[in-house]
């Protein structure tokens, strides 16, 4: 079975490599600052001992005071997985760097998050609504969305 790596261990490793990039970490996950998300993600993918080559999903959560974008990665080589998150505190114009250059599978999922949650992904080549139509007002999965 796939081993879920400890967020604390990975966070310590990342903190050594990229000082100040980790916001917090628990046994199950770690929170990366969105400024250093791309380099951390590239490190997770390219480091031989981690080799997270499979992108399970990206999703987003609305906590009122901030949005949290959640990524799960798996390594098909080592058969282990990790969950890492990033937060954006700007409610008016939340922006997170896109990981589409690292994992193609993020394409439609990032579009879905943009559509329903209104988080824009910087560097996404085709960031437009996926499920709802052009001209729809608002982002319905936000907690403060009123029809």
């Amino acid at each position, binding site marked *: 079975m796939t081993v879920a790596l400890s967020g604390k261990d990975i966070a310590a490793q990342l903190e050594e490599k990229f000082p100040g990039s980790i916001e917090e970490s628990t046994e199950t996950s770690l929170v990366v600052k969105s400024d250093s998300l791309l380099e951390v993600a590239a490190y997770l993918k390219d480091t031989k001992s981690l080799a997270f080559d499979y992108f399970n999903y990206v999703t987003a959560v609305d906590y009122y005071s901030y949005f949290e974008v959640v990524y799960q990665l798996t390594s098909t080589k080592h058969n282990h997985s990790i969950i890492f998150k990033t937060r954006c505190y700007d409610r008016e114009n939340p922006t997170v760097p896109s990981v589409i250059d690292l994992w193609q599978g993020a394409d439609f999922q990032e579009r879905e998050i943009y559509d329903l949650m209104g988080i824009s992904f910087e560097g996404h080549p085709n960031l*437009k*609504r996926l*499920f*709802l*139509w*052009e*001209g*729809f007002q608002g982002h*319905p999965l936000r907690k403060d*969305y009123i*029809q």
Partner: protein
Amino acid sequence: MEVSSDREYIYTSSELDRQEGQLIEEVKAGARESIPDPDAWLDEEVKRSIMLSSLDAVLNWARRSSLWTAICFPACCAFEFIAAEGPRFDMSRFGMEILRASPRQADLMITAGTLTWKMAPVVRRIYNQMPEPKWVIAMGACAISGGIFRSSYNVVPGYNKIIPVDVYVPGCPPRPEALIYGVQTLQKKIAKEHPLPDPMQMLQRGKKE
């Protein structure tokens, strides 16, 4: 929309998106009121209180005995419909098993599933492409009223906002028996229609002229 000849595409994808969005907004704006169910046949029967002519009966028999269904299965009710088509429930016993991928060859639309606003223009288009005479069976809670998704931001609250519906089959999803009963009800309804003009009215019109 103007298209210059040096463009690689006739429409760019963002233009297509905008057009699609516009179309959906138009359909949505025009769908505030439910379309009344076609019930002229009821009225007429009361008004004239005469029997059908024999040619009416023949036409109605021909129409109701081979209802060809257009494929419009946006969601899970489709599986009950497929079951009804299959060997166990065998709708073909009643002459209603044929499915048509082309709406131009169909005269019945069984709307098996939840309709989203994004899909609404497509369903209306399929309906418009079906030749007259045509009938619609709203199958399942979603097709009748939007069902549990009624208050959602992207679900049409009932097909009768988009197209006129003849028979409603409740259930979530309805069992194949219910669907078969619904089609039989529609057949009874068709049997009461008057495809030919009213002879009395024709006589009166002749007198006037």
